[in-house]
């Protein structure tokens, strides 16, 4: 949701005031404690699993992260040269209102503050480890990335294609629901279930000229109006074995079009269903970290519309991160160099043309090797080289593009 400049200034004032008030007594979370906590966490806990500053006399913790990079992109031999990007500044603030009631918000400033978005602002009420209420502006629990998107956690400057350009990460909507976790030995089981506002018809009528869930985010009054008038359900089940890894399955879907207007039926009701599987693991012997997600979308469109807007999409990404050197460097204990690689694939229009029975294109395939340096787990410096092949809907020869990135992302 876009907020006005006045609200932006007010927000900043509040944050600065809190910083000033607590500066003397500000404390970082104990790293040992957080390592132990990590083992008990699922991907869905990412929203509360962030380094924050807490203040002795204030029940508030504050944190955030900053991402900046340089980029040099060449598309079919043509380049616009080097650019410097300060992609986002995100600030989060949590408050323990009482023993069982917490509030957390995440506000993101993009494009130098021209775009300000509330990504998350929810009240959590803990009734039981297996039953917690969450309401407000919630992140829909779809895939691995949407709820766990903080820049410093990733070795790549670009966000995964499937997450951002297919599943609309970071996607949040107004609504409420519940979540919970339970433990048994090495096993952890978690769930989330929310009812929120849903998508809009923009997903099948947009300037990308394809079925494109992220186009929904360009709409107005997203946190006030539900375009279709029908609630969207999103939910996730996740299971983790501390020695093996975590796997999650998630779903979100519902009606996306305004099929009734003033009580009159004006269109056939159309639904979108999104299904995702995500996984992450660390191979203990080598320290190799693997994370990824695969997703499928089914969107109903009228037969009389156009195949330009596909009914079925699929995509996957996988990151492999290998620490190669871990030692004290300067004053940083456990500073780590990593080599990493990402595979991205999205097919925005799975199917064959009715007219020719030939395969529909509209795909992207990319590989991104990279190296990263983490002086501490909270800060990452990274160099990535992304090479991509993008085909148009007709499956004409792929347009190739190569992009160098060098940047950093750090919690503060």
């Amino acid at each position: 949701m876009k907020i006005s400049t006045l609200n932006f200034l007010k927000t900043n004032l509040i944050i600065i005031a809190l910083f000033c008030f607590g500066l003397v007594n500000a404390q970082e979370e104990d790293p040992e404690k957080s390592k132990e906590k990590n083992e008990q966490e699922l991907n869905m806990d990412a929203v509360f699993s962030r380094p924050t500053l807490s203040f002795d006399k204030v029940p508030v913790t504050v944190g955030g992260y900053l991402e900046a990079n340089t980029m040099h992109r060449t598309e079919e031999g043509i380049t616009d040269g080097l650019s410097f990007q300060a992609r986002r500044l995100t600030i989060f603030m949590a408050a323990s209102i009482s023993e069982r009631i917490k509030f957390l918000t995440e506000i993101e400033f993009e494009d130098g503050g021209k775009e300000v978005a509330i990504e998350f602002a929810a009240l959590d009420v803990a009734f039981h480890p297996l039953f917690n209420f969450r309401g407000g502006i919630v992140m829909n629990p779809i895939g691995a990335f949407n709820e766990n998107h903080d820049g410093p956690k990733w070795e790549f400057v670009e966000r995964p294609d499937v997450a951002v350009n297919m599943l609309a990460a970071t996607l949040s909507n107004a609504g409420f629901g519940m979540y919970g976790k339970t433990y048994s030995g090495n096993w952890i089981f978690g769930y989330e279930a929310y009812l929120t506002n849903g998508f809009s018809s923009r997903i099948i009528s947009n300037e990308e000229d394809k079925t494109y869930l992220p186009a929904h985010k360009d709409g107005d009054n997203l946190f006030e109006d539900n375009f279709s008038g029908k609630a969207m359900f999103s939910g996730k089940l996740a299971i983790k074995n501390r020695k093996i890894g975590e796997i999650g399955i998630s779903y979100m879907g519902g009606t996306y079009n305004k099929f009734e207007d003033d009580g009159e039926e004006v269109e056939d009701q159309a639904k979108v269903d999104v299904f995702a599987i995500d996984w992450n693991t660390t191979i203990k012997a080598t320290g190799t970290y693997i994370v990824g997600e695969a997703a499928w979308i089914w969107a109903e469109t009228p037969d009389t519309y156009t195949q330009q807007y596909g009914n079925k999409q699929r995509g996957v990404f996988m990151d492999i991160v290998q620490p190669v050197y871990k030692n004290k460097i300067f004053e940083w204990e456990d500073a780590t160099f990593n080599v990493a690689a990402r595979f991205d694939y999205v097919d925005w229009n799975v199917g064959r043309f009715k007219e020719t029975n030939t395969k529909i294109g509209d795909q992207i395939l990319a590989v991104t090797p990279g190296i990263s340096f983490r002086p501490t787990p909270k800060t990452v410096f990274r160099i990535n080289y992304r090479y991509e092949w993008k085909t148009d809907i007709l499956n004409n020869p792929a347009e190739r593009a190569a992009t160098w990135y060098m940047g950093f992302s750090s919690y503060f």
Partner: protein
Amino acid sequence: MRMKSYLLGSLLLLPLFFSCEVLAPQEPEEYELLDGPVEDLTMAEAKRFIKGDVAFNDQIFTVETGLGPIFTGTSCVSCHAGDGKGHPFVKFTRFGQSFPGVNEYLKQGGPQLQNRAIPGYEPETLPPGAAHTDLIAPIVTGLGFLDAVRDQDLIDMSDPDDLDGDGISGRVHWNTRPDYVSDRPETISKDGKYITRFGKKGKMYDLLHQTADAYNQDIGITSYFEPYDTYSGDKMPSEIDRQTISDVVFYLKTLKAPIPRDQDDPDVMAGKALFGDIQCAACHKPTLSTGYSPIEAISYKEFHPYTDLLLHDMGPELDDGYTEGYAHSYEWKTPPLWGIGLAKDSQGGQYFLLHDGRANSIEEAILYHGGEAENSKNLYRGLSQIEKDQVLKFIESL
């Protein structure tokens, strides 16, 4: 010691900064692409070309920006990917006219069938019994050169009564034109009609006529030039500004002519000679020249489109029973052959040739020829396989 290692490690990163261009995909050769401007545009013209390029290739119409409600494509580029030939996925149907003159189905949605509709609307369906034909979009490069050929040059090439007795009797298309178009330099009119030259039947006068009509009939966009909504038939406010249409017209006028390839290949050279020998060049004229154009880069230039822009009887196999303007249903305008070898790069890697994409190879397209081209087709059939391959290789090199 450790500090030295870190510095050395940092220095090793330096080559990365200098390898941006080395590891990047190289720019395709100019002759491999259809898009790009003609040479020698002024800087102001180049800027305008880019504006038109953006409107033509990047502007996607949505429900919010005026798409439809009934349409055949969502953008210019949906029918002309890479400025190339259309794909059957975006083929469109015209209907309602069997004989030269007026379309009898204008009140039933003619001449174009908008076969797609935004949600909540029903697309048009073909009226039972209406004459019709399917069409796919042509390559759009080099159109400025074709637009700048003088009317008199077309008349000079025509031979409607076959006075030279070669069996080829091309004729110019005398047709009406809308009021919003302007005379091209040295235009010639007869009985209130003008020589029209764009479109498969050559019914469009110029690129403004073609562009404004395409926005309206293909995408459902009303404009100052074509203000009537294709769905309701009502006059509507413009959904695109005049400047954008003007920029697109300028873009189309200044797209470069396709660049032939492998012209020194002996087979291509032999094929070129055979192409003339079997009289293909009687209609697919290798060389034309432009008259005056306000765009200096295309003014008084010789170019090689392999067309005469005239209407020819193409025989019963290509006669779909539908026509436009004052052409007969068996008549088609000679399509330029330039760029044909690159056509499949905009058609998903496979040829869809002739007006409706029915031919999947150049040879298949040749064998569909009839009427005035019957003799040429038979001469082609009489060639040895090596000679046929040479002709095909030559055509593919254009």
